[in-house]
């Protein structure tokens, strides 16, 4: 790796820690309002400004990471999962900065900055080498299409943050009424989903730091009657195998907590070599997610939604609703241009068809249809506040599935190298 690329990776790490610091400072700005001998409003303003300053510095460093990697790698760093996710995290910060400058709501930082932190950490799960571009990616549309799409999506991330804040602010967490209970449960589910992502990242990094590895081989016979050829594939597990690939042999198994062989094999319909490994990762994520959630519940001694809602005391819910809507209104045209129109132009140039119902294309369309439905419901049917906040939360889930889920589960033409 050249010196420039090394410098670039360092900038990435420093930016990451600055965002973490900014998150803590935003928390101080919000929570410290009730500390003794101070005026809550001036405390919030002072610490909010410091926090915003730190997060902006982080953004400057992440931009430095981006442009130095561009210079060092010779092409715009949005061509694999690591690069795309870090770019997305950067755009979320840009979107946050834009919305923050419009509305000046300190509390927004407390919810938007963690999104960036999580996406950045998630990016670091993937291989970080600069890879040369395959012919289909050698186009200036790569720059335009991917960056614009990510910019639009990052505004949806801000809408998600504001929408979720609205819910935390307005759901009645002390009520035992059936309707309120349902709202509380869903808020808790959103928290749990976020925790799942965090625990996935933590688990991967913990075992990576420990240098864990087990290897399996799978031999598959293929071909028609008479002539059969068998192909043997190897798969490396970086997490202790609870589940082995379908019909596989253990090549090497590093014992973990007294476990010396997998507990069971993947079912027959998960017959791909990597399906078992992915299933294993999901099991680990769920286990560690439940543990992490349990720990947080023990600390908070109440559901996380109820524990988080006091942070939002004194915040005008209408403002949150408006921020969420405004973020979508800003992001929607950008998303349309970047993720659909530019995508169509590039597809026309590269593959000869502007639309081919590739899973990624379809999911971009699904996102677009979802937010169109949101806008119609809001503008013409008066869906506001709670309903539209839930939609903005759900919408971001759809966006994340489009960006991550499609690559991991469905793949197709847009599969990045190194997404395994």
């Amino acid at each position, binding site marked *: 790796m050249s010196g420039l690329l090394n410098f670039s990776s360092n900038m990435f790490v420093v930016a990451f820690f600055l965002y973490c610091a900014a998150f803590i400072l935003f928390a101080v700005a919000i929570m410290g309002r009730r500390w003794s001998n101070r005026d809550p409003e001036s405390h919030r303003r002072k610490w909010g400004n410091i926090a915003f300053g730190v997060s902006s510095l982080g953004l400057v460093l992440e931009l430095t990471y981006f442009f130095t990697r561009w210079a060092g790698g010779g092409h715009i760093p949005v061509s694999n999962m690591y690069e795309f996710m870090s770019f997305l995290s950067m755009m979320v910060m840009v979107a946050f900065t834009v919305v923050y400058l419009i509305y000046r709501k300190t509390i927004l930082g407390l919810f938007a900055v963690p999104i960036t932190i999580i996406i950045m950490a998630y990016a670091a799960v993937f291989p970080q080498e600069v890879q040369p571009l395959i012919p289909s990616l050698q186009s200036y549309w790569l720059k335009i299409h991917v960056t614009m799409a990510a910019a639009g999506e990052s505004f949806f991330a801000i809408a998600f943050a504001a929408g979720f804040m609205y819910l935390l602010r307005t759901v009645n967490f002390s009520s035992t009424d059936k309707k309120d209970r349902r709202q509380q449960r869903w808020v808790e589910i959103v928290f749990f989903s976020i925790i799942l992502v965090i625990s996935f990242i933590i688990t991967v990094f913990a075992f990576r730091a420990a240098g864990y590895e087990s290897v399996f081989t799978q031999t598959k016979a293929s071909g028609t009657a008479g002539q059969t050829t068998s192909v043997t594939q190897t798969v490396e597990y970086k997490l202790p195998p609870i589940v082995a690939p379908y019909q596989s042999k253990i090549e090497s198994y590093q014992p973990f907590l007294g476990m010396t062989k997998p507990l069971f094999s993947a079912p027959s319909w998960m017959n791909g070599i990597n399906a078992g490994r992915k299933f294993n990762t999901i099991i680990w994520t769920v286990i560690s997610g439940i543990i992490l959630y349990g720990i947080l519940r023990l600390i908070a001694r109440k559901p996380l939604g109820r524990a988080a809602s006091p942070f939002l005391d004194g915040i005008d819910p209408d403002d949150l609703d408006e921020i969420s809507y405004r973020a979508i209104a800003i992001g929607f045209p950008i998303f349309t241009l970047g993720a659909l129109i530019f995508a169509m132009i590039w597809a026309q140039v590269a593959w000869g068809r502007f639309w081919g*119902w590739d899973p990624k294309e379809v999911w971009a369309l699904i996102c677009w249809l979802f937010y169109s439905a949101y806008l119609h419901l809001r503008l013409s049917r008066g869906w506001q506040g709670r309903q539209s906040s839930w939609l903005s939360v759900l919408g971001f889930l759809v966006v994340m599935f489009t960006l991550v889920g499609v690559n991991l589960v469905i793949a197709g033409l847009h599969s990045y190298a190194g997404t395994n």
Partner: protein
Amino acid sequence: MMKEVIAFKNTKCECGHQNPVGTVLCEACGRPLEEQDRESNEVLEMRYDGMARRSQRANPNFIDRIWNFFSSVKIAVYMIILTLLGSMLGTIFPQENTFLNIDPSTYYKETYGTAGWIYYKLGLSHTYESWWFILLLVMIGASLVICSLDRVLPLYKALTKQRILKHKQFLTRQRVVYQGPVELESKEWVEQASVHIKKRGYRVHTLDNALLAEKYRFSRWGPYVIHIGLIIFLLAVLARGLPGLHMDQHVAFPEGEIKHIPNTSYYLKNEKFTVEYYSEQDLPKEFQGKNKVLPKLFKTQATLYECTANCNDPSKQPTLKAVDHHNIEVNDPMDYKGLKAYQFDYDLTPVLRSVKPSLVDKKTGKDYGTFQLKIKDPERNYKVGPYSLELKEKYNDFGLDENGQPVTKTPNPNAPAFLFLIKGPNLPAEGVHYFYFPKQIDKERFQQDAINAKMNGGSVPLELDVKGMGNVDLSMSTTYLNIRVDKAMPFVWVGAAIVMLGLILGFYWQHRRIWLRIDDGNLTLGAHTSKNWFGIRREIAAILRKMNLEVDEKSLDNGGNHS
């Protein structure tokens, strides 16, 4: 008749204006028309400025009912959601068109088991071509047209004939309201205020004690512009299904050969195909030494010819004229008058084009001479020295059927074989049959000598032999190009551009209006915006501050819908 009379009676406002049936707010003064509505203090429903729409006609007939159905936003949202869910279903398993050569009736069952079989049986393996999906798109198209017409006309009417002086209730029931005493004389206050409002880009109309300020009205047309763009887009997409507007085929072009592009008057020659891979040092460390190959470039140097004469006469050679030359790469197709050629695939297996075998006497080794044998279109008769060779049979892909008879398995020249009848000195009068396999590997595999001996009841004294690679003409590679014509594309792009224009108009500007009137030294101000209430409150607070009225931005909020 009776009904109409009642309707007329109900829609006449106290200001004397006669409103059409279905009007919510008087078209002139903005006073609510419904009795109950007048007693309420709720924020007014300002959609389309309370104008009547066609879809609100009193006694709908059949056509009205269809109109009403498609003009409903609720129905439109349902259709959007259904399309969304349908699209999701289509991504569960790969669609049929992802594969070039499969039999879907067995493929899905074999690859994905029972779930795949059900998927195929439900027709989801071609979701996006299925009738219900297309129908949904067509219905969305209809909804786009009717929704827009139903709303844009009344909205246009409302916005082009606005009155300056509005009913007081119209103002106090806006979402942004301010009421309070003013010190100056009413006309003077209005005049001073209009200066400050104008500074913020508003067009201001005043009438004695009343004022109407408005800006960015064009933003209101945004949604309708989007819809027009979408309609053009959808029509263009549907038009691609019409014959003649769309062509899509994959054609193989062996290197160095001029080949006709089916169903066109064009021929294309693949001058040279190049594939390059990244070298080891270009790859990241992780990939090095792992035999991982990453392609860098696929390039076909192509020349396009147009046929000018003898195009449809198989007995004559067509006259070709070179019209275009292009290095076709991925992301850089050839484009000649709407005919496009995209790099799609390649095959590096060498293909035999012609050989120059010598006719040799097996015993003496005497060489009687050579002749050129073209693999694809061989001539029928050859003369070599004193011998004559007549081509009796040609097999592109030689094989033996279950009865031991020679057959050609595929039309591809994988294992070409030629059956000659040779006549000449020292041969029987009727000649000998001679099988010739130009490829050494086939010659051994099919035991050429044994076949020939068996056919003639003894060894043949002659032999065809290619002496050296100089007598072999190979096409080193084949490029596969995707040949396309898409005449509807310009309309697709125009539609997309209009959508984008509408999005920008509608989302990045907001139509803002401020009404105010002063009655007996008391100011009543109401304001409305299509979006961004936060912004208009801030603006009005700033304007009022200029007029020495200190107000909290938030206190201007009168509640109600934040659309």
